[in-house]
C-alpha cells in the first residue's frame, strides 16, 4: 500500500514537474494570421506577416511587418528580431502570393506550409494582382484584421457565391495529381477595396493565365458539385434572365477514338429563376422550355470557350488528364500532353428551371 502511494506521489511530482514542456500563453506570442510574398530585387523575396496584438481593456489591433530575405522562414526570423513576442504560425489563415512571384512558381513557399505540422490544411491561398504587401497595408483595413477579412471574403464566396472551393489541401492535391493543374482565386486592390477579380490557373506551380469573373459560373459548375451561384443570361431579343443554381453536377465521359481520347461533359443543372426581364416591356408568363434551351446553348458555348482557352495555354484545371487516366489503362503522361492541345471536348448542358419564385 505504501509502495503504491509512493508510486502515485512520484507520478504526481513527475507530471507536474514537466516544466520542459514548451508552453505558449496566448498574449505572450504573436500569432501570424496572414503571410504575403512579393518579388524583391536581386532574387530576394519580400515577405509580409500580419499578426494581431491583444491588449488589456482595449480592442485588439493588427500589426503588419515586412522584411526581405531569401526564404519564408528567414523572413520570419528577421521579423522575429523586431517583435515583442515570438512569432508562431499555428493560427495561419491566409497566404497570399503576388502575380510576379506566382509566375516563377510557388512550390517553395507552399512546401513550408505543407511541411509544418502546426499549419492546418484548410489555409486559404490566393494570388494577388499587384503586391501582397500593399494589399495587407491598405488604409481601409487598418483597424480591422486584414488577414481575417481576406479569408472570410474568400470563404463566403466559396460557400454562397461563384468561387470554386480551394484551399491548401485542394492546391496540393491538384499540384500532385497526374493530369491536373491547380487553380487559385485572384484578388486585387481596386480603388481601395479588396476584390476577387478572377481565377488564377497554374501550369504545375506556375501562374499561366486567369479566367475572368464572367466565366466563374460555368467553371464552378465544371469543377465543383452541388454549389450555389447566380448568373445573368442575355438571350435572344435581349431578354434578360438571372438564374441561381440549386444543384449541378458535371459528368465526364471518356471515349477512345483511334487511340485518342475524346471527352463529353454532361452538365446537369437544376436552377431557380431570380429575375426575368423580357425585351418587350410587357409582363408575360415565363416560358420555361424556350428559355431552358437558350440557356443550355449559351452555357455550352461558354464552356467550350474556356476549355479552348485552357487548351491554348496547355493547362488542365478540369483534370481531363486524370479522367483519361481513370478510364484508360495504357495511360502515358507524355503522350497525353501531346494530345491535349487538340483533344476533342463536347459539352452537353441540361438545364432545368425548377422554380420561378412566387410568381410565374
Amino acid at each position, binding site marked *: 500500500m505504501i509502495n503504491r502511494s509512493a*508510486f502515485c506521489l512520484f*507520478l504526481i511530482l*513527475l507530471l507536474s514537474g514537466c516544466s*520542459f*514542456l*514548451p508552453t505558449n500563453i496566448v498574449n505572450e506570442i504573436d500569432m501570424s494570421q496572414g503571410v504575403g510574398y512579393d518579388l524583391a530585387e536581386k532574387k530576394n523575396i519580400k515577405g509580409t506577416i500580419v499578426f494581431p496584438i491583444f491588449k488589456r481593456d482595449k480592442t485588439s489591433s493588427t500589426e503588419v511587418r515586412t522584411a526581405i530575405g531569401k526564404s519564408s522562414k528567414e523572413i520570419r526570423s528577421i521579423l522575429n528580431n523586431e517583435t515583442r513576442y515570438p512569432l508562431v504560425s*499555428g*493560427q495561419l489563415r491566409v497566404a497570399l502570393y503576388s502575380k510576379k512571384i506566382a509566375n516563377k512558381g510557388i512550390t517553395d513557399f507552399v512546401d513550408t506550409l*505543407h511541411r509544418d*505540422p*502546426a499549419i*492546418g*490544411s*484548410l489555409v486559404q491561398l490566393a494570388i494577388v494582382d499587384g503586391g501582397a504587401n500593399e494589399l495587407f497595408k491598405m488604409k481601409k483595413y487598418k483597424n480591422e484584421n486584414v488577414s481575417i477579412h481576406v479569408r472570410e471574403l474568400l470563404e463566403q464566396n466559396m460557400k454562397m457565391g461563384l468561387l470554386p*472551393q480551394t484551399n491548401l*489541401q*485542394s492546391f*496540393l*492535391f*491538384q*499540384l*500532385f*495529381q*497526374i493530369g*491536373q493543374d491547380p487553380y487559385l482565386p485572384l484578388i486585387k486592390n481596386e480603388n481601395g477595396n479588396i476584390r476577387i477579380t478572377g481565377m488564377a490557373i497554374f501550369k504545375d506551380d506556375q501562374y499561366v493565365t486567369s479566367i475572368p469573373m464572367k466565366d466563374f459560373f460555368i467553371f464552378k459548375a465544371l469543377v465543383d458539385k452541388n454549389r450555389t451561384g447566380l448568373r445573368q443570361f442575355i438571350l435572344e431579343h435581349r431578354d434578360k434572365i438571372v438564374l441561381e443554381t440549386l444543384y449541378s453536377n458535371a459528368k465526364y465521359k471518356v471515349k477512345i477514338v483511334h487511340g485518342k481520347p475524346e471527352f463529353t461533359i454532361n452538365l446537369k443543372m437544376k436552377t431557380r429563376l431570380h429575375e426575368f426581364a423580357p425585351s418587350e416591356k410587357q409582363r408575360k408568363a415565363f416560358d420555361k422550355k424556350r428559355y431552358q434551351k437558350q440557356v443550355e446553348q449559351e452555357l455550352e458555348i461558354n464552356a467550350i470557350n474556356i476549355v479552348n482557352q485552357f487548351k491554348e495555354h496547355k493547362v488542365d484545371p478540369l483534370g481531363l488528364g*486524370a*479522367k483519361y487516366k*481513370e*478510364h*484508360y*489503362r495504357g495511360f502515358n503522361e507524355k503522350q497525353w500532353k501531346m494530345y491535349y492541345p487538340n483533344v476533342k471536348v463536347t459539352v452537353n448542358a441540361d438545364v432545368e428551371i425548377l422554380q420561378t419564385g412566387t410568381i410565374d
Partner: protein
Amino acid sequence: MQANIRHQVSPYLVFFIIYNSQVGVGILSFQRTIAAKAGYDAWIGVLAAGCFVQAFIWVMYKLLGKTNGDIIDVHTTIFGNVLGKFLSFFIMIYYWLASVSVLIGFIEIIQVWMFPTMPAWILSTLILISVYYCVSGGFRVIVGMSFLSFIFPQILLIVLFIFPLKIAHFSNLLPIMNHSFMDMADSIKSSMYSIAGTEALLMFYPFIRDPKASKKFAHLGVLFTTILYTISAIVSFTFFSENQLKTTIWPELSLTKTVTLSFLERFEYLYISMYLIIISVLISLFLWCSSRGLKKIFNRKQKYTLLLLCLLSIILCHFNGSFKDILNKFIIQMNLWIFYGYIPILLLVLTFLIRGKQND
C-alpha cells in the same frame, strides 16, 4: 496447463485483445508504404492480408489447442526442455522488439507533431512507467485497458473520417486492378506487417476461460481490424492524390489537419494524445507477453523481467534515425518468417508427433 481461473478472462474479450494487438502506429503511416508499389490498388492488398491473418488465427488455435498451453509449452513438448526454451527465447525477443518499434514510432510522432525539443528518453520513460503500472496489474488489467481503448478513442477516431470524406475524390481509385501481380504481392507483404500483432495469442491463450468459444471472437476481431485498415486506406487514397500521398509520412494524421471545430482549431494534438491510450495498451500487451515468457524460461519473477525489458527499451529508444529503419526491417522479416513460415510447420510437426504417440 491453463492459468488459474482467477486470472482468466471471458471468451468475448478476445475480440478486444486481438483488435488492440493489431492497431498501433502502423495504421497512421501504412497507407504510404502499401501504395509505394501497388499504387491505389493497394487497398485490395489489405483485404488479402486480412485473409492471411484469419488463416494464421486458425493455425494458432489448432496448435495451442493440442497442448492447451502457450507457445513455450508447445516448444517443450516437441523439442524438450532446453531446445524448446531456447527457441521460445527468440519469440520473446521478437515480442520485445515489436513493442520497442511501436514505442519508437510513437515517440517520433510526438516529437514531430507536438514537442520538437523533447528528448526521447523523457517520453519513453513516461510512457513506460504507465505501461509498467498496467502490466504489473496482470493480464486482466491489460484486457480491461484494451476494452477501454476500443470504446473511447477508437470509435471516436473512426467518426473523424467524416471530415476528409466530405472532400474525397472517389474516382482516384479507378482503374481498379491496374497493377501487376508482383506489385500486389508487395502491397500484401507490407500490409501484413501493419496488421501483424495477433501472434500475442500464442502467449495469452491459457488465459482465456473457454478457448473453443473464443475462436469466433478472435476471427471477428481480425475482421474488424481488416475493415478498419481498408477504410483507412480508402479514405486516404481518395483524399490525397497519388504523388501527394507519396510525400506524406503520416497520412492519417495529415487527414486530421482538415478537422476544425469551432472551439478547437487544431485537432491533431487531441488525436495524438488519444492515440497514446491505444499505443500504451499495445506496448503493455507485448511487454506482458515477453516478460511472462522470460519468466517461464528463466524462472524469475515477472516483475524483474518486466523491469529489465523496460530499461532496455528506454536505452534502445535513444537510438533514433537509421536504427529505427533497421529495427523495422528486421521485425518485418522476423514476423514473416516466424509466424507465417515457422508456426505452420510447427503445427504439422506437432500433429504427426501426437499421431505417432497414439499409434504406439
